């Protein structure tokens, strides 16, 4: 039971982070390798805001701050990168990530930081006969709640319809009157906000340091690729799968845990080259 919860908790964290990455790729065709740095800034800003106020204020304000960053990012950078070769864009965003790491170093210094969970979420709770850290249960619930909200919004709202249409076929959606730039602004703001949410959720769970983006980037990429490039639902399922595979691997065959997700990546791509979500038109 504990192992299952561990896998789902880590998966939930990845789900929140990778869904934004998948959305951004789906709509803009931009594989943003700087997405992990937004998660890093989410953790750092969470540390700063929680220090000045409290964790709950940070949990609300940090995603909003990162969403604003996303809006600016879309207007000044991503819009201009749309349409370029995916590898070219990936390398540009990787360069941006490396530069942003230095920005974090300059602002917060090189020494690792940590953030304690709020009093309400410290300690352990009983769940199905198991004692489990309350904060982890919160991450699990928050992750699923965010994803449920996102799914509902994409399925039920008018802009959600536009996003789905544009993600499936940008050109046709555009010809049918969908303003891709406007939709994209919303998507990028949401995606960076989700990265911020993942950062503040992870802050009481990991060490906050300028290099933390690179530790989460590879799992996020694996999740997006396995899920099917651009698919939010695929990324969500792949994230949970990643969490379960890695924690199961670490428990059952520790030597295998590091490569387990990559074996899964290869297996999925071999059997289903377009990922779990299937064929996309782009």
């Amino acid at each position, binding site marked *: 039971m504990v192992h299952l919860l*561990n896998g789902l908790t880590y998966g939930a964290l990845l789900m929140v982070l990778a869904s934004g990455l998948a959305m951004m790729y789906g709509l803009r065709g931009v594989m943003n390798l700087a997405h992990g740095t937004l998660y890093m800034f989410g953790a750092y800003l969470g540390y700063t805001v929680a220090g000045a106020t409290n964790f709950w204020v940070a949990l609300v304000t940090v995603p909003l701050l990162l969403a604003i960053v996303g809006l600016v990012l879309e207007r000044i950078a991503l819009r201009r990168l749309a349409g370029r070769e995916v590898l070219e864009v990936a390398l540009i965003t990787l360069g941006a990530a490396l530069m942003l790491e230095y920005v974090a170093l300059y602002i917060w210094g090189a020494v*690792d930081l940590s953030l304690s969970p709020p009093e309400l979420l410290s300690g352990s709770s009983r769940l199905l006969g198991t004692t489990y850290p309350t904060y982890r249960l919160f991450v699990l619930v928050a992750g699923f709640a965010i994803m449920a909200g996102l799914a509902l919004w994409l399925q039920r709202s008018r802009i959600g319809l536009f996003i789905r249409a544009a993600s499936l076929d940008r050109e046709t959606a555009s010809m049918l009157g969908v303003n891709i730039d406007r939709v994209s602004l919303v998507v990028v703001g949401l995606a960076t906000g989700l990265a911020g949410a993942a950062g503040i959720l992870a802050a009481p769970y990991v060490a906050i340091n*300028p*290099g933390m983006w690179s530790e989460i980037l590879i799992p996020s990429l694996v999740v997006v690729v396995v899920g099917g490039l651009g698919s939010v639902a695929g990324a969500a399922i792949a994230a949970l799968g990643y969490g379960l595979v890695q*924690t199961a691997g670490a428990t059952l065959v520790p030597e295998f845990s590091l490569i387990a997700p990559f074996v899964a*990546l290869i297996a999925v*791509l071999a059997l289903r080259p377009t990922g779990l979500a299937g064929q996309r038109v*782009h």
Partner: protein
Amino acid sequence: MRARSYLAAMVALSLILVGCGGNGGEADDTAAEPATTDPATTSGETGDDAAEPATEETPTADDASEGATDEEPAEASDEEPGGESDGEPIRVAIIPTLTGTFAAVGSEIVLAAELAVENANAAGGIDGREVELVQLESDGQPATTLSLVERALEDENAPFITGIISSAESLAIQDRVVEGDGIFLNTTSSADAILAACNERTFSTIPPNEQILNTIGELITESEAESFSIIVPDYATGREQAAGFAERAEAAGKTVNEPIFVPLGTTEYGPQIAQLQDQGADGLFSVLFGGDAIAFTQQAEQFGLLEQYTTLSGYNFVIELTFGAQGEAVEGYLGNFNYYAPVIDTPLNDEFVSTFEAANGAQPTFVAANVYNAFQSLFAGVEAAGSIEPEAVAEALRSTTFETILGPDQGFREGDQLFQRPEFGGQLVLADGGLAWEQLVTPTFEDTAPEMSCG
């Protein structure tokens, strides 16, 4: 099919990133390295204003050698700066990593090196020479560091190399420093293999693994725990440290469980924490380092794991750089420390601590102290040799004693060039709202240092 090409590109990128992430497959105790993606190489620059070249003309390594061939190694010189020396600057290259998990260690290296150079120049230089700092930045990969060492030796005319962090890097560059007629001052890498190489141009101011483990062994003998679990990063040095601890704990009559190995840079420690709970030991020995140690501490505390242990111990699991982040959760921790400013009572250490605090607003850590100690040793070697010719300086360093922040009559053991100093053992206590070391044991160098294997 375009979608397939995207996928192929992403897989390739993932693999590239994975490749960038390691640390040459081998990290050291002081700076166990999780996966990071750092800039391949960025070149640094000379240090601060105080370290500006004394002359506009940059001397070559050959010039320096020729100018010093007739000079004899000597006792530490009392000669006033500007006396008989040729005035050529002492150029020292530091090659730390400033991002990723190495960032905090690298930053301390830079601060200490800058301070050592500034203090030396403010005092009129060393043997009549200005000291110049050449700062290069590595990404922690041995190949990168090796190329930067070559650059320091061949292009920067900096024969004195220091501030290299991981053991993998240090092992990779040792021979090249000899070939390039330089001196390597090892301040941060503690793999036993560095000493075992018996490299005549490598001088280590950091104690090696074996000496540190011997100190930890003394602490463990007196500890309350009867059985130990071990958690270590999964790389060669980590495995050696696990085996070394197990050997000493068993010799002290403790039961030792099967070690748990964790990949570097792990984010989720839930599975390992569950395993540790299942093992049910009353003592824990951890070799996790830096960000890994902090993440593990946070998660172990949330799981209530730490309450299980009467003895929490480790090898650099808690260091001054992580006191703030690990906090009260590790109060009572038994471990080693190379240096802790409040326990070193020497005039030069007082001066070092006060100038470091004035410059940086914080107490120097063991990283800064080892670097500063290396610079003081180098300066003493230059003064004793009356030359900056590396062979003369190396000979002087092997054969003379000098005063450093650790006290008078300090020096290197001839053969493996290990600085003859103790490793401290202590317990973390809460003081003034933060953690502080309370020294418990100070084994002598003779009692704990590895036997010299060099002929």
